[in-house]
């Protein structure tokens, strides 16, 4: 799947300026996409239709806001696509676990580590931390004891 085909397909969902090619040698990705939370299910559906698998799903705590970061890659052709979803504090992201069952655990991990809610997730509870842990260790203001 060449990068421009991916960009064309994705741009139909997120808008033309939001999906751009990036320098693979410098970033390890071929396409960078910026999406709104509500566009994620449609975007994931489009990636699955192009036979991409979900490589990684994580988040960044930018202090004032969050960013959820998805990496998609293909078994068949080298075209890593990174999707950034800027997220103000308190806003939820629709789950993509119905489209990619593999996203189920990734979303649970982001939920427990950052406190980000994935709306529509069938089983959004702690994955790695103890069941009763009510803290979010990967937040920047979480102080780890040394």
């Amino acid at each position, binding site marked *: 799947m060449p990068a421009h085909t991916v960009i064309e397909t994705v741009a139909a969902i997120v808008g033309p300026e939001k999906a751009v090619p990036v320098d693979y*040698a*410098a*970033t*390890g*990705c071929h396409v960078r996409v910026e999406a709104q939370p509500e566009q994620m299910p449609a975007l994931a559906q489009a990636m*699955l239709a192009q*036979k991409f*698998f*979900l*490589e*990684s799903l*994580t988040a*960044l*705590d930018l202090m004032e806001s969050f960013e959820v*970061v998805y*990496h998609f*890659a293909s*078994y*068949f052709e*080298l075209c*890593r696509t*990174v999707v950034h979803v800027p997220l103000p504090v308190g806003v939820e992201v629709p789950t993509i676990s119905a489209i*990619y*069952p*593999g996203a*189920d*655990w*990734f979303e649970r991990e982001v939920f427990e*580590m950052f406190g980000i809610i994935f709306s529509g997730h069938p089983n959004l509870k*702690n*994955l*790695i*931390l*103890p069941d009763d842990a009510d803290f979010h*260790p*990967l937040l*920047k203001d*979480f102080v*780890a004891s*040394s």
Partner: protein
Amino acid sequence: MMLEKGLEERTFYLNLGPQHPSTHGVLRIVLEMDGEFIVTADPVIGYGHRAHEKMAELRTYQQYLPNMGRVDYLHALAYNQCYCMAVEKLAGITVPERAEFIRVITSELNRISSHLLWFGAYLLDLGAFTPFLYCFDDREQILDLLDRLTGSRLTYCFYRFGGVPVDIDDDFIAGCRAFSQRLRSRWDDYDNLVTKNVIFIHRTRDVGILPPEMALQYGVTGPTLRGSGIPYDIRKSEPFSVYPLFDFEIPIGERGDVMDRYLVRLQEMEQSLRIIEQALDKLPNGPIMAEKVPKRLKPPEGEVYTAVETARGEFGIYLVSKGDVKPYRVKLRVPCFSNLSVLPELIKDTMVADAVAILGSIDLVIPEIDR
């Protein structure tokens, strides 16, 4: 009368783990059983969580290097490689060719030692004790070779940003050649003892079939994926280091069952031997460290994703820098996390004995999943 009451009333729960010999680590799987058959399976993970990703944000780039030998301790050098690649990419450091050759040779040796350990431990799961003694005898040779070079036998921390700290000498090269000859001479033993063993065939043929479509939905990688016939191997699909210089094949399976995953791993060891031999033949002279790598490393602001092929599949690092001496965020994309998440689908409607055979065939390293 019993049937009318519905399935729910006849099922019971069985804990596989957290301390079960076949989980090779602390993994618990809650099985809902209908007699001897598994209705649902729910893996419970996190017992070995060491907060590796949080640690990355609290340490400098160099200080975090030793962590990389402890995520997946069975193929530590691939993790070294991936992290070094990420930082080198971000900081614009070029690695000398000889250093890349040394990285490939040692990483492939490490891959073989990981596969040998899996081979022995997996057959223990299935109740065969003798193969374990054979492959640990072979594995010991690798550990001795790497011990002499790196100073460790398991949790290697051998690569540096810009190269490797120690050059290999003639003894190491001779040792590698002798080992590769020795392991080749053992394949017949392995085949006669295990691959052609009728009990083994019955336990593994057509058991735990993973369809390629399901693998894609779950993001399965590594030998577990290749057993299902998809030739996705980062060493070929997204070439890194000096792998493009070598001639090797990507073994794949046809049916995607436990037997195919076993065969893929066995054949991969032979391919690794081929890579090692070619690398020794072509080994260039020159420096083993890049010049002028700053002691106080401050990569510019930016983000990078690098991936390598470990013994269990794709390991990726998503590294974000804000121009500080510490990384802003390090996401470790570990292969077994995705590979284990498909397990409930694979062991549904099988018997417990098969579940053990399927679980082992994914080659899990639990601390790697927990991180």
